[in-house]
């Protein structure tokens, strides 16, 4: 639609800028198309033939895209003949064009023609067309802001008639002739002046002269991007005998003038190794054995590596890494209308992953199973458990079909090949050589695999419980059928014409009682998910019985179909080959084989890079899920090539790759380099690995580590998920935790857990105070400290036992000194004369201020229903103290006479100056005789007195400044004025420290029940769990 306003100079300038950007984009896309054509039609890569092929389409493109390097790289003797042939074909092309008498697409236009365009045509376009027909947002895909766009036309048809320019659709459109179904443009507006239209016609006849600017930028050929080339491993010097990783890393280091840090000590290495491979910290026993091992450092380490690789906990740790990539979740995502969101059998995929890593299934096989297990394994064979691998596809996010497919496709290609194919859903990929047609080719593979199934892979445990379960489930299912049947009967009476057509009746009933039927079905789903009594089932997809051809969806819109896109593999991942259409079913197995192929330039590189990242914190390519042209380049290109090749040569064995990496000196170096200050300016990001990257424990290492060092960890393997961050806290490893895609417990993301909505390459690495709040305050953390303190207490040396448990080593002398001084000062504060009533500085009770000015205070003896009171009975009958109480809100009530005033007592934890504030309130205005509040300090006597009369609702009770000594008592006394009627009141004082702003004591927040403070040993144990020594790996 045409805009009313006129653009000012600034906007015009801005638009020009945008056009420039779009032009660049457009050139790239045109280029890819040209390249594709060249690849498919000219597999022998004859540059001259390519020339001739492109020439009629666009000679400019042909000239600008010919790969001159191909020519130059040819043998010299051939070069001249190539050129000769190219030029002669060029000439033939030109002649053909001239002779045909049709449009001339010259590579150069005369300055007059360009001037004509700039003065007569461009202003008309800017004024009338470009608001809607610019760049990727252009209406109907028709981009009129660059010459390519005019030539391409809209998503539906060409707008320029090259044979008869005067009959071009676009001319009919701007003249509102209505011929050839041409729309009337600009929309909702008068046609442009005829002389302007005539100018445009003349301009079209000239061959659309457009200034040179648009083709001055020649992009690099994305097919030449490093990651699309076959893996090209460098060779090691013959005399080299060490670890190849060190060779390549040192090579780059010495070139840059940095040097690896010294080898870390055995303590550090075992801790790092155990956390790396199993996600758990080493025990004191393991540590001692390792440190006392007589073997050489290398041999002892290798033995430890082998021991840990055999541990079942290795599988748990590394399965979780892959679960990040596979956007694992136990729920489907958002579902309206209270439907149950859980995948009942998601855990079978997780368990399969754990076993796959434990068994070291070759990684190519590992990928094949996840994409096409149902075509590799027979349902009744002993291998049927491999079917669970297809959770990789099935555990996708719910939503519209095209987005489910896109999610599966994206997870597959970003996860396995580091390629962001999804960009090509709406338009050819802007940066990487993936066309929309190719995207829909792959899309077709998934679209033809949408048949779901849940084959049984392990029978349920037989027994009476199962019988009971089946019975109840049957009852619930019967409710659904009974309801439908009853409604069908009813409706058959109402609509006799349908009486004999049961299926239609059922349909009608389903439609009319959608809500009710859904809720009955949800009850069944919920029961099944809650009970967890079924056997194990694999969540798989199958090919549709007959594969349907897949069309391109124009701009990603399924309602706008374009040409058929053949299902075949991506050209970019087939260097030196031509894609051939898949033949069998959906083509999924063929696609899987092409991904898991040693010839695929991406797959091996991507996984060795991920494994590297899971060891070092950063990948060799830091954008681990984007190996395209927009991703980073490898920091150690030779090393990556070497590892990718080595990995395939070694049977795609992940465990072998671990051994190679973990035995390198690069991995074994310290996290601090003594020469670090000198290296930092050279390589501030440590890309050259002159020190081992220091890592914080991730969420799973932290939680599992805490449970492991206290000895509480439940080491049971496999099975259904459990909630791990909500009470009652499961003691199982975090990998078994329930992951809710839609409403993930915020603690997960606070600790940078992966986002279960989409495939995650690298988790963020942030340090925020909310993390510390969890480790300092949460019930989870407190319980661990408590358990540790209670159970590690042996009569001998408690400090040493705690250190051995938490850090797997004895305390140093300095540790001991710190511990002892902490324990004694904490204990004396904690004990405070052994008289502590509550967990805070506050106590609650009753009494009065005597004539002499002293306060007599009796603490409330009873805690019931979150409040302090006189006895279990409330109000206490026939007692002047009957209504006395204190509660967190500040709601309170004094006794009958001033002798039974309510008293809040606060003890100053240290010398300070305070300000007291707070309101005394009552609701029963006009009734009773009101109340009186007094604030009293030991040194100052009554420092404030406030009378709340029966007529008023509230009074401010404050003391502007009061000096108190350590342990001095301040009392807040609320007197009934000897008449207790209508004395329900609210008083919640606030004490703020004047000499140290920010520190304050609030009655409300500090309110607490009977004292059960963490004692000094618990506090000490918790401190150890909160130390960097525990929370960091190194």
């Amino acid at each position, binding site marked *: 639609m045409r805009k009313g306003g006129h653009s000012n100079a600034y906007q015009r300038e801005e638009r020009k800028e945008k056009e420039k950007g779009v032009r660049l984009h457009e050139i790239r896309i045109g280029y890819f198309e040209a390249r594709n054509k060249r690849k498919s039609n000219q597999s022998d890569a004859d540059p001259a033939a390519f020339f001739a092929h492109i020439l009629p389409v666009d000679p400019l493109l042909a000239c600008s895209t010919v790969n001159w390097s191909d020519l130059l790289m040819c043998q010299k003797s051939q070069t001249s003949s190539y050129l000769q042939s190219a030029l002669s074909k060029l000439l033939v092309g030109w002649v053909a064009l001239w002779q045909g008498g049709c449009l001339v697409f010259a590579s150069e236009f005369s300055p007059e023609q360009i001037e004509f365009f700039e003065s007569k045509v461009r202003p008309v376009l800017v004024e009338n067309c470009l608001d809607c027909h610019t760049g*990727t*947002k252009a209406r109907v895909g028709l981009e009129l802001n660059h010459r390519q766009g005019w030539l391409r036309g809209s998503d539906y048809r060409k707008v320029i008639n090259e044979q008869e320019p005067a009959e071009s659709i676009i001319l009919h459109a701007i003249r509102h002739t209505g011929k050839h179904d041409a729309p009337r443009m600009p929309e909702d507006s008068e046609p442009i002046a005829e002389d302007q239209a005539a100018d445009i016609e003349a301009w079209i006849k000239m061959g659309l002269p457009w200034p040179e600017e648009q083709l001055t930028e020649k992009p690099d050929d994305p097919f030449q991007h490093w990651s699309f080339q076959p893996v090209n491993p460098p060779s090691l010097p013959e005399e080299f005998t060490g670890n190849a990783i060190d060779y390549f890393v040192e090579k780059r280091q010495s070139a840059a003038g940095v040097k690896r840090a010294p080898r870390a000590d055995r303590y550090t290495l075992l801790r790092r190794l155990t956390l790396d491979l199993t996600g758990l910290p080493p025990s004191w026993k393991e540590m001692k054995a390792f440190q006392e091992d007589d073997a050489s450092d290398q041999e002892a380490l290798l033995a430890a590596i082998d021991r840990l690789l055999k541990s079942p906990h290795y599988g748990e740790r590394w399965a979780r890494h892959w679960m990040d990539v596979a956007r694992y979740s136990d729920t489907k*995502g*958002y579902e*309206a209308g209270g439907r149950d969101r859980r995948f009942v059998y998601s855990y079978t995929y997780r368990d399969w992953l754990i076993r796959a890593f434990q068994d070291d299934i070759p990684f190519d096989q590992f990928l094949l199973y996840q994409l096409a297990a149902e075509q590799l394994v027979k349902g009744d064979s002993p291998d049927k458990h491999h079917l669970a691998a297809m959770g990789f596809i099935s555990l996708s*996010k719910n939503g519209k079909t095209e*987005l489910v497919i896109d*999610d599966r496709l994206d997870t597959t290609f970003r996860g396995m090949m580091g390629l*962001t194919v999804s*960009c090509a859903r709406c338009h050819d990929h802007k*940066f*990487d050589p993936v066309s929309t047609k190719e995207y829909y080719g792959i899309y077709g593979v998934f679209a033809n695999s949408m048949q779901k199934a849940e084959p049984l892979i392990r029978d349920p445990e037989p027994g009476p419980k199962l019988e009971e379960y089946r019975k109840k489930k049957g009852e619930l299912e019967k409710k659904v059928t009974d309801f439908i049947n009853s409604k069908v009967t009813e409706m058959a009476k109402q609509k006799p014409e349908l009486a004999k057509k049961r299926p239609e009746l059922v349909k009608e009933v389903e439609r*009319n*009682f959608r809500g009710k039927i859904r809720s009955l079905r949800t009850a069944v789903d919920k029961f099944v998910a809650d009970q967890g009594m079924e056997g194990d089932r694999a969540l798989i997809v199958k090919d549709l019985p007959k594969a349907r051809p897949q069309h391109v969806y124009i701009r990603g819109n399924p309602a706008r179909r374009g040409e058929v896109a053949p299902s075949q593999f991506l050209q970019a991942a087939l260097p030196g080959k031509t894609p051939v259409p898949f033949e069998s079913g959906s083509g999924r197995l063929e696609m899987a084989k092409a991904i898991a192929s040693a010839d695929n330039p991406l797959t091996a590189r991507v996984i060795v890079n991920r494994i590297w990242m899971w060891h070092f914190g950063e990948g060799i390519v830091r954008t681990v*899920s*984007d190996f395209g042209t927009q991703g980073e380049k490898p920091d150690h290109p030779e090393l990556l090539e070497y590892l990718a090749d080595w990995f395939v040569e070694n049977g795609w064995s992940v465990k072998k790759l671990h051994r190679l990496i973990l035995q390198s000196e690069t991995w074994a170096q310290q996290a601090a*380099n003594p020469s670090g200050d000198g290296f*930092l*300016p050279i390589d*501030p990001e440590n890309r050259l690995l002159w*020190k081992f990257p220091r890592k914080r424990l991730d969420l799973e290492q932290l939680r599992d580590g805490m449970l492991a060092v206290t000895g509480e960890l439940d080491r049971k393997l496999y099975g259904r998920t459990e909630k791990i961050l909500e009470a009652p806290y499961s003691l199982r490893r975090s990998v078994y935790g329930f992951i809710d895609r*839609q*409403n993930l417990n*915020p603690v*997960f*993301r*606070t600790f940078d*857990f992966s*986002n279960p*909505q*989409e495939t995650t390459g690298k988790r*963020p*690495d*942030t*340090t*925020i*105070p909310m993390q*510390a*709040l969890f480790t*300092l*305050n949460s019930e989870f953390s*407190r319980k661990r400290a408590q358990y540790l303190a209670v159970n590690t207490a042996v009569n001998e040396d408690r400090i040493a036992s705690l250190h051995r448990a938490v850090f797997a080593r004895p305390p140093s002398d300095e540790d001991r000194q710190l511990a002892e001084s*902490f324990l004694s000062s*904490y204990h004396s*504060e904690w004990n405070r004369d052994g008289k502590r009533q509550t967990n*805070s*500085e506050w106590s609650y009770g009753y009494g009065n201020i005597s004539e002499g000015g002293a306060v007599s205070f009796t603490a409330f003896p009873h805690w019931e229903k979150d409040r302090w009171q006189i006895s279990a009975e409330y109000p206490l009958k026939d007692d002047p103290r009957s209504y006395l109480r204190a509660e967190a*809100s*500040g709601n309170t009530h004094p006794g009958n006479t001033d002798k039974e005033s309510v008293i809040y007592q606060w003890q100053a934890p240290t010398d300070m100056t305070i300000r007291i504030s707070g*309101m005394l309130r009552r609701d029963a205005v006009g009734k009773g005789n009101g109340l009186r509040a007094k604030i009293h300090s030991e040194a100052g006597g009554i420092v404030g007195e406030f009378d709340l009369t029966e007529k008023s609702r509230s009074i401010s009770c404050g003391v502007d400044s009061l000096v108190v000594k350590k342990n001095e008592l301040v009392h807040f006394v609320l007197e009934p004025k000897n008449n207790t009627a209508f004395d329900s009141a609210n008083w*919640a004082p606030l004490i703020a420290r004047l000499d140290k702003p920010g520190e*304050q*004591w609030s009655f*409300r*927040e500090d309110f607490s029940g009977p004292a059960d*403070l*963490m004692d000094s040993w618990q506090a000490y144990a918790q*401190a150890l769990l909160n*130390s*960097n020594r525990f929370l960091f790996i190194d």
Partner: protein
Amino acid sequence: MNRRDFLNRCGMGMGSLGLSPFLSEIMQAGERRQLNPLSPGKTHFGAKAKRVIHIFANGGPSQVDSFDYKPALEKWHGKNLPGEHLKTERKTGTAMQSPFAFQQHGQSGLWISDLFPKVAEMADDLCVINSMHANVPNHEPSLMLMNTGAERVSLVRPSMGSWVTYGLGTENENLPGFVALCPGGVPIVETQNWRSAFLPGAYQGTHIDTKNSEVRKLIPDLRNPKMTRNLQRQQLDLIQQMNRMDVDDNDPGVEARIHSLELAYRMQIEASDAFDVEREPESVQELYGKTLHGRQMLIARRLVERGVRFVQVWHGAGQPWDSHEQIEKNHGKLAQEADQPIGALLKDLKMRGLLEDTLVVWGGEFGRTPTVELPTPGANSPNTALGRDHNHHGFTMWMAGGGVKGGITHGTTDEFGFRAEEDRMHVHDLHATILHLLGFDHELLTYRYAGRDFRLTDVHGEVRHQLIA
């Protein structure tokens, strides 16, 4: 180093933590933000607004009953509107005049209905946008559009609050940067409304269920109930002494963790303070009203006053403003809950000089039809009467403060208030304008993820300079 020196150094942040001089030089702002993602960010140009309160009348408040006065509806009441009805979620019938009377308010003479008498008192500060429009008449996609700029529920996009916090960091590290207040549960589409998606978790909205009036239950893990502050300070000192002992180089990650422990300690005090509205003078509490909505609006003010960057205040769980029936009764009750607190917020912010750089945004995910909703079997209650259906073709939102013009309306709907006509403003345009007020070019506030740069407005959005003072 004695204990005091040590604590001072911890408390004063990373700059003073003995980083070697060239490390601080080399560590550019960007890297510092990676370690502490909430440290203040830089805007592209001068900002008019420093923080946002987004009052979300979720469910879809009716524009023709509130801020979009359509006298024509009185004439057409009970009659079919000319031409075909625009498509909305369900079938609607004849025109229905508003049961609420409209009056002009303030110097500006803005037309506001009796639903919002207290808000109307602030008419001269309101910038009413009558020409809002969205894409579809359904709650889920429209909520997603309003909050994330992408309407597909299954698309993974960060919320506006997350973008703003990502761009601006926070002015107060002792509080979360982005807070979502919603009483009694969560809106539909749930926590997705304030999640950070592919942005780091530090930018996710912290949901507070304001139905809970006990401050210490509002934020989980805000304090250790089994320790006094003194005891915890002792414990923290011990942890920091151990951390100091173990430092063997100037690792920024380790320093950041030492720093964040101190922040956490202060957050315990400051956060509970921020959420305790009882600390306000009686007169202020009464201005807002001692109700659930009064309390949560007052919390919102206390939060922005303390430097929280983005506060979203939801009317309630589910979709409370979704009055498919009995608009008079239902909207009447909802407005009665919301009007005084919102009016008080505007007044209070203004009095404190905070309105100048605090942008207040009010509205739903869409509006409602000027026509009456017809009963639809299986969809709504058969006794649907005098209600209105969803309407994304045209609806009203207003902004106040934060550098917008007061006392103006922007754009119009058609004669009946059905479809936005003049100066149509899409949700993307609203986002672009909000980011502009905060000092960002919406096309440049991007995040690289999955091989491309993402932004709140995707490929859309146009800043409406006409609204900016």
